[in-house]
């Protein structure tokens, strides 16, 4: 296969992501790097330029810088959809463009690959409601106010609204941070005498909230549900020693590695095995899976940060 590869077109792949500001993003970056390293080891004709941005404007700059360095493939996890116009510029200039996760506001990509934000919180909410026998008080801790957060929270509210016995008491922003979530949980515990479950849709925040609950020595809460499969949380579920934490929903950060393969396939005009179409799918949405004690082991990656 070495020879076959040598004949292939040289790919200079620019990969732009937001910087790690939450635990989840650190794992995403880990997978992105893993994906790049694996491919680099496999194929001499592939070169990666990786950048990450702590704000939108920086990401727009990053993409311009990548273009100045003559990339022919761009993988971008947009900070948010407002970088669309810059991605569009790259796309229009003939760069093979793969957009992931937070997405763009118009179609200016060859492939879009993402986790399923709606499915993510729908699965979680359904599980929680079921566990509570469709009756009980829920408190939410949300992330930083922004579009994906809005989608998630709306989905939770919509899903829970199907069940009249479920009441959402409150929803406050924990900024996807453990310490903020902890403070918010402390405040909830003061304010609400009776809480049945806490849903944060993020494992960092869930762990912070759990900490606050344990410190309070209260006994009312039955379930804490985070999300996105932090390895420590999966371990907890596997071990089954923490009755408060029994499930999780995937929002797999390995999409960042998957996307590398997808981009390379697409840029070389190839396709998945057994796929009869010539072109790769334009939109690939990865399923959100429910993780419980039964299947937890297969979602456990001890090497993740």
């Amino acid at each position, binding site marked *: 296969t070495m020879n076959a590869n040598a004949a292939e077109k040289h790919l200079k792949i620019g990969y732009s992501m937001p910087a790690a500001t939450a635990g989840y993003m650190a794992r995403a970056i880990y997978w992105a790097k893993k994906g790049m390293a694996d491919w680099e080891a496999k194929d001499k004709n592939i070169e990666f330029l990786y950048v990450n941005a702590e704000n939108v404007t920086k990401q727009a700059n990053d993409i311009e810088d990548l273009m100045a360095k003559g990339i022919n493939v761009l993988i971008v996890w947009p900070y948010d*959809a407002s970088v669309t*116009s810059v991605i569009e510029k790259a796309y229009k200039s003939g760069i093979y463009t793969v957009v992931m996760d937070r997405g763009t506001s118009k179609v200016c990509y060859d492939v879009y690959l993402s986790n399923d934000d709606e499915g993510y919180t729908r699965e979680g909410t359904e599980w929680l409601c079921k566990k509570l026998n469709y009756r009980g008080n829920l408190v939410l801790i949300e992330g930083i106010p922004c579009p994906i957060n*809005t989608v998630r929270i709306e989905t939770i509210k919509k899903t829970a609204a199907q069940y009249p016995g479920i009441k959402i008491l409150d929803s406050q922003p924990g900024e996807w941070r453990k310490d903020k979530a902890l403070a918010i949980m402390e405040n909830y515990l003061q304010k609400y005498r009776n809480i049945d479950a806490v849903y944060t849709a993020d494992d960092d925040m869930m762990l912070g909230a759990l900490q606050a609950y344990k410190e309070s020595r209260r006994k009312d809460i039955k379930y804490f549900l985070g999300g996105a499969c932090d390895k420590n949380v999966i371990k907890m579920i596997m071990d089954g020693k923490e009755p408060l934490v029994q499930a999780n929903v995937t929002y797999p950060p390995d999409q960042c590695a998957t996307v590398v393969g997808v981009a390379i396939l697409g840029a070389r005009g190839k396709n998945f095995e057994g796929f009869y179409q010539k072109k790769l799918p334009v939109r690939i949405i990865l399923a959100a899976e429910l993780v419980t004690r039964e299947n937890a082991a297969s979602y456990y990656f001890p090497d993740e940060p």
Partner: protein
Amino acid sequence: MIKKITGRFRKFHYQKYASLIALALLFIVSSILSPYFLQFQNILNILRQISYTGMIALGQTFVIISGGIDLSVGSLTAFNASVGILFLNYLMKIFSNEFIAMAGGIIAALIMGLLAGSLNGFLITRGRIAPFIVTLGSMAIFRSLALFVGSAGEIRSVSGFYGTFGMNSILFLPVPVFIMLVLTAVLSITLNNTRYGRYLCAVGSSARVAMFSAINVDRIKFIAYTVSGVLVSISAVMLSSRFNAVSTSNMGMGFELDAIAAVIIGGTPLTGGRGTIWGTIVGAIILGIINNMLNMLGVSPYLQGTVKGLVIIGAVYIQRQKA
């Protein structure tokens, strides 16, 4: 006697051009390290990239010379841009004429910037509240208002034209770069050759002495914050035109630190009383080159902060060293 004179002469020049020397050094090092650096397009990119915070840093220079600080610039960028685009969209609905809508939107953003800046200025001068607190508060307020009007999401302009005008060129320069340079020239003249500029330095150096010299201290400070607000809105217009949208939760994040850093790297002391407008632009370019080089050299993302921190400290150290 001759020695004395040359000594003073040298000192004078060095003080004035210290930040330029740091820039020149960084420039030379960068062109050696990366083959892409000196490409015309790359230089233009850097200039455009810094132009947005550059404009903001110009206003910040005035504020800092006056002895204050403006932390609200980043949030205000998002809020001004939101107001501008909302108004543009509204006008499009009524007139369905892109030019009228665009003009209206831009004017709305500018007026909002003016009002927001005056509000800061008012609280600081009339309310006698520390600038740090007022602008820390308004930083939270403007961001929150932007989130509120945009439901924490994006506000997109319905005019395609708006999304391109900021991308054109004037005299071979990208529009925002051109505007930044014009603003720099105007503010530089204001600082060095007008009464207001003199009073600004006087107020920043000693509000008491300025007051005794029959200068209306409050008015001078008030104007500085208002200028800052207006420059923020110019930047907001250019930036939202670049994206043809505003991300209410992210736009302008961290601009305040970038802008203040540019001002200080450029040679204006945080204590106020004196300063240089061109220096600020040099400072902004230095920061831009650092970011550009981190990408060009492919420095590991985790270590970029270390390199960036070291270069910033180094750039200012060079300036101090021989002064």
